[in-house]
């Protein structure tokens, strides 16, 4: 069974409808379970209690990037194979990605505040996420601005392609930009830092939870988009007769 079969809207609606309840249940279970487990774990005396925000920050940051990659892949699929569901999936994913980025930024700032003494630092990682947020906003704004759906899908796909290259380029430019100001990455909220094993498993659980949350929201939003297109098509036909 080829994955391309799901490009058929009817089949997509049927399959996504079947998966959705499990995705929602799984998302709720993993996310809440992971968060509860993590927050109730006794504090590591070295890192204090604020490090527990990592259970929100790391999954959100991971999803923020993964969702953009997913948008890039679905945009390419649209451009090459003209699968309409693919284009709508990209459109549906963007706001989810933007919110994930916002969560990552907010939790990153909250995590850093005790360390830095301010609510924001132009740390390379946070700055890169801020730039990613700008790309998300631009992408969503373009979808909203163009009326013809074929043109909107094509233009946003091209924007996603060019934006991906520049998001990557900006990552390294920002690293270069901030290296000169602060020696080393001492202010980085890098999630790869040594984390005690007791936090690791709750973290994996919340990461799985956020992924399932994204999946559930994506399926709901894509299904809504498909229904919206059906409605538009019916209305257009009404006008012609």
């Amino acid at each position: 069974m080829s994955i391309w079969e799901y490009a058929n809207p009817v089949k997509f609606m049927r399959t996504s409808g079947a998966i959705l309840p499990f995705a929602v249940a799984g998302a709720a279970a993993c996310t809440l379970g992971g968060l509860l487990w993590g927050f109730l774990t006794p504090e590591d005396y070295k890192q204090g209690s604020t490090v527990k925000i990592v259970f929100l920050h790391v999954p959100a940051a991971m999803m923020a990037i993964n969702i953009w990659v997913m948008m890039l892949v679905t945009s390419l699929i649209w451009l090459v194979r003209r699968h309409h569901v693919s284009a709508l999936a990209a459109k549906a994913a963007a706001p989810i990605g933007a919110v994930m980025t916002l969560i990552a930024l907010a939790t990153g700032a909250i995590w850093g505040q005790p360390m830095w003494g301010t609510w924001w630092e132009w740390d390379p990682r946070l700055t890169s996420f801020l730039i990613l947020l700008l790309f998300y906003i631009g992408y969503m704004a373009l979808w909203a601005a163009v009326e013809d759906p074929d043109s909107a899908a094509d233009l946003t796909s091209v924007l996603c392609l060019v934006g991906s290259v520049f998001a990557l380029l900006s990552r390294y430019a920002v690293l270069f930009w901030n290296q000169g100001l602060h020696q080393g990455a001492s202010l980085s909220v890098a999630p790869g830092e040594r984390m005690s094993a007791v936090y690791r498993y709750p973290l994996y659980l919340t990461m799985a939870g956020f992924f399932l949350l994204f999946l559930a929201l994506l399926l709901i939003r894509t299904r809504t988009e498909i229904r919206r297109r059906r409605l538009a098509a019916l209305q257009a036909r009404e006008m012609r007769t």
Partner: protein
Amino acid sequence: MSLLAVHDLAVARGGLRTVEGVSFTLAAGEALILRGPNGIGKTTLLRTVAGLQPPVAGRIEMAEDAITYAAHADGLKGALSVAENLRFWAQVFGGGGIGDALQAMDLGALADRPAAALSAGQKRRLGLARLLVTGRPLWVLDEPTVSLDAVSVARFAAVVRAHLAGGGAALMATHIDLGLDEARVLDLMPYRAQPGKAARPAGFNEAFA
């Protein structure tokens, strides 16, 4: 020798098919006039033939580098003079003088006037003069005689006749009788795409209907 052959062409506008199953050929020296009520898709069809949008179905076969397109918007730059406008297009399409074109559309006296100062009819004549400087055989024209008075329409018809005699061809949509008796007429009504539930998908939204 056929300059243009269209097979079973279907075009869409706003996500719905307008006409389908259109077929015709155009050889050197022939002219074809498209007729049909407003909204049937004459402009869309001409734009598709010109290459500005892809057809929904069907095939277009055209000789290489044969086509030149002229529509309602003349593409004139007001800040440039008449001669400068024409010279630009002559250079883009591969050289050639503009004198004959100016002469043919009676623009000689206006050659150095800025294009912004022309009347609507004069601007339209300049737009048609542009066709002559492109030196291309296949003319695709969308309502070419809008804003022209009777004298200018007759002048334009003479220009088209000369073009056909010289081995060119013309495909145009026009309501006005140009007096080109040798031109065939293609009425698009029989090719109208069936509206309503039977309308076949053509646009993004239609893929979900």
